[in-house]
């Protein structure tokens, strides 16, 4: 009995002790106004080294720490960053950059032309010993230091789109551990991390441009998406990007503002064109007629999002073709007729592989399955882990259909259209069209902007005509931000700009 008394006392003590210290913590957070806690869905697991980082979730955070020679702005233009100016000569064969005066790395050392040369060569693998980290850099013939302020890049083939690749981060040549000690030139510097828990960022005082407003940023990992709303409401986090419409509805009437932008993803049911039934264009078209994208938006996304009809989203205004979204209006009869013509009058069965960590894609797939039942197509869902999806479906191309969103890694149409070239290594749907390859190569070779856009549009048209995939939407991106803060800005890319956030007076 004595033992129990002892244990009870111990437990009570623990509670009392922790209750006291809990109060103290509240005080400290109130006094320090210039800080924000931002929830992120997963920890950075690929790398803090910007050249080795590949996950979209990592890149959008590193955007605040690293910069390239140029960087994108919120309107989708490329603006000079580490370089103050640039010159494109020889119809896109030579790119010359002038180093900005007074750009410093986070530790205070000035950026030199050697750092720039090192950073580009590291990704281009000019030595041939490492790996090619930016595929477009394979076109680089040489990187030359002209003088203390000037670097010139010579390409093997003219490429007017090359500038968009130079958002690739500039890092110090002398840093021996870029993954463990990330040093860049961005408005925030990396301070520390607790694995699977949080990452600390701090405002970089010597930033060359408009400095950040908020001093301290804590990125807090919220691994369970169902706890996002609870954690926002409890005040543990002040912001969360890309919440679902259901979560936004749960936040109605609270101290949170919900901002709506676009996700800049091409969400589609991607079809493996090499899979026997889908090799027939009539089957693919039938599926497009059978799926009602607007109904998916209404049912799972509260009507938010933009229905699209090809591998391009509205944020890339120059290339986007809104008319394609209406290429395959819902038509059950036509779908059945096309299936019958292709020899599938008695129905068709296939499996949709979906990465289980993306609830929005899982929801979309469920609705597609229901819609396809009406045209006598029996689809089943196979949920897999993300790693399995990458390994089997994406790299191994072992899938029949899959619902995912594909994003653009740079600010160019190429980022979205390159993969459908028949021999491209990322052509995971095995799309094969001579017309497409021809138009795409013509676009690459073109040095005239209008002509190039026209070729890219031809590519989009081919994707639509051939019904390469069942295109669905560019999803709405909903951001929850506590109304004590303001300044959230959407980009036409998958990035988050923390530097523009500020504390409301």
């Amino acid at each position: 009995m004595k033992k129990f008394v002892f244990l009870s006392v111990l437990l009570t003590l623990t509670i009392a002790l922790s209750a006291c210290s809990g109060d103290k913590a509240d005080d400290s957070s109130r006094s320090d106004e210039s800080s924000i806690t931002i929830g992120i869905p997963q920890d950075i697991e690929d790398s803090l080294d910007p050249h080795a980082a590949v996950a979209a979730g990592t890149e959008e955070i590193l955007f605040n720490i690293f910069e390239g020679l140029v960087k994108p702005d919120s309107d989708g233009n490329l603006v000079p960053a580490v370089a103050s100016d640039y010159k494109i000569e020889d119809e896109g064969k030579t790119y010359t950059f002038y180093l900005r005066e007074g750009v410093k790395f986070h530790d205070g050392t000035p950026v030199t032309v050697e750092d720039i040369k090192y950073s580009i060569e590291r990704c281009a693998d000019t030595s041939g010993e490492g790996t090619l980290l930016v595929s477009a850099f394979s076109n680089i013939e040489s990187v030359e230091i002209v003088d203390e302020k000037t670097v010139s890049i010579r390409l093997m083939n003219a490429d007017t789109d090359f500038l968009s690749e130079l958002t690739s981060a500039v890092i110090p040549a002398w840093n021996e551990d870029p993954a463990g000690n990330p040093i860049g030139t961005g408005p925030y510097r990396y301070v520390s991390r607790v694995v699977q828990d949080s990452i600390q960022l701090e405002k970089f005082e010597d930033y060359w441009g408009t400095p950040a407003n908020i001093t301290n940023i804590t990125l807090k990992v919220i691994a369970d998406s169902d706890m996002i709303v609870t954690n926002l409401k409890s005040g543990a986090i002040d912001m969360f990007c890309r919440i679902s419409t259901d979560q936004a509805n749960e936040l109605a009437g609270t101290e949170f503002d919900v901002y709506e932008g676009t996700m800049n993803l091409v969400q589609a049911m991607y079809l493996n064109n090499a899979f026997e039934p889908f090799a027939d264009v009539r089957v693919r078209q039938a599926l497009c007629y059978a799926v009602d994208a607007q109904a998916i938006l209404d049912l799972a996304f509260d009507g938010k999002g933009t229905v699209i009809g090809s591998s391009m989203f509205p944020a890339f205004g120059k290339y986007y073709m809104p008319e394609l979204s209406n290429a395959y209006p819902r038509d059950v009869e036509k779908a059945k007729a096309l299936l019958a013509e292709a020899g599938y009058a008695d129905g068709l069965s296939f499996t949709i592989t979906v990465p289980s960590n993306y609830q929005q894609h899982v929801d979309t797939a469920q609705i597609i399955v229901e819609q396809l039942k009406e045209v006598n197509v029996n689809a089943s869902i196979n949920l897999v882990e993300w790693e399995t999806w990458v390994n089997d479906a994406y790299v191994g191309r072992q899938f029949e259909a899959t619902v995912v969103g594909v994003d653009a890694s740079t600010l160019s149409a190429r980022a979205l259209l390159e993969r459908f070239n028949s021999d491209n290594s990322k052509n995971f749907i095995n799309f094969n069209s001579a017309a497409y390859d021809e138009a795409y190569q013509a676009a690459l070779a073109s040095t005239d902007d209008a002509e190039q856009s026209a070729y890219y549009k031809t590519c989009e048209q081919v994707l639509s005509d051939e019904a390469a995939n069942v295109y669905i939407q560019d999803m709405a991106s909903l951001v929850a931000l506590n109304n004590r803060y303001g300044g959230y800005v959407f980009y036409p890319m998958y990035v988050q700009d923390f530097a523009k956030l500020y504390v409301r007076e």
Partner: protein
Amino acid sequence: MQKRKKGNAGFIAGCVITGMMLTLTVIGFFYTPYDPEAMSAADKLAGISPRHIMGCDNFGRDIFSRVLKGAQTTLIVAGGTVLIGTVFGVLIGAFTGYFGGIVDEALMRVMDALFAFPSLLLALVFVSLFNSGTYQVILALGIAFIPSFSRIVRSEYLRCRNLDYVKSARLAGASHLRIMFVHILPNIYTVLLSSIMIGFNNAVLAEAGLTYLGIGVQPPDASLGEMLSNAQTYLFSAPWYAFGPGITMVLLILGFSLMADGLKH
């Protein structure tokens, strides 16, 4: 006298509840008020009404119809799990407990290793291996359940192998297999039966846990655990979503554990 009656009352209540749940599940095989997979934008998160007695979920599907189907899946998963656990548990437990010696040592080390693997993690590895789906979940949970069953059975066989009736059967020339499964097995069935029922409940909860971690039953199939873990997003705006599957799950488990308790008396 008093006590005997109380034990029986619990047992009868357990039987009644379980019987009720099983009947509903069987009805679900042949009839549901609505197609459990039919979606409707108009009924999205509709409340409880005479048309939808448990309301509708986030796709406008009738929750009651889905509970009927979901209870089926849950019962199949739990039943399959317990079946695998029991069959292999009895085989391994009987051999190791009856014979002892080096086979016992070796098998029990493997069982220890399996047991030391927290069952959830074992399932996690399994599902990564074979993808998620109803049968994979059964297999994963079933294997995770073998060690505890085999331990229980082993200790019963250890206890029984030197009892008089076993000795006399051996003297009468019965084979080892016959002694193990014809003589001893019927004598330990109460222990086995109540651990089956407890195992059944654990399987129901484990399935819910797996689904919560995103590695359970595949949509659009429903299971009680899957519905409950989906429902949590809407706990404020549509509490009835959690209510239907939640109550069903509690009743299901309650029925079995009352029966298990009653068996011990």
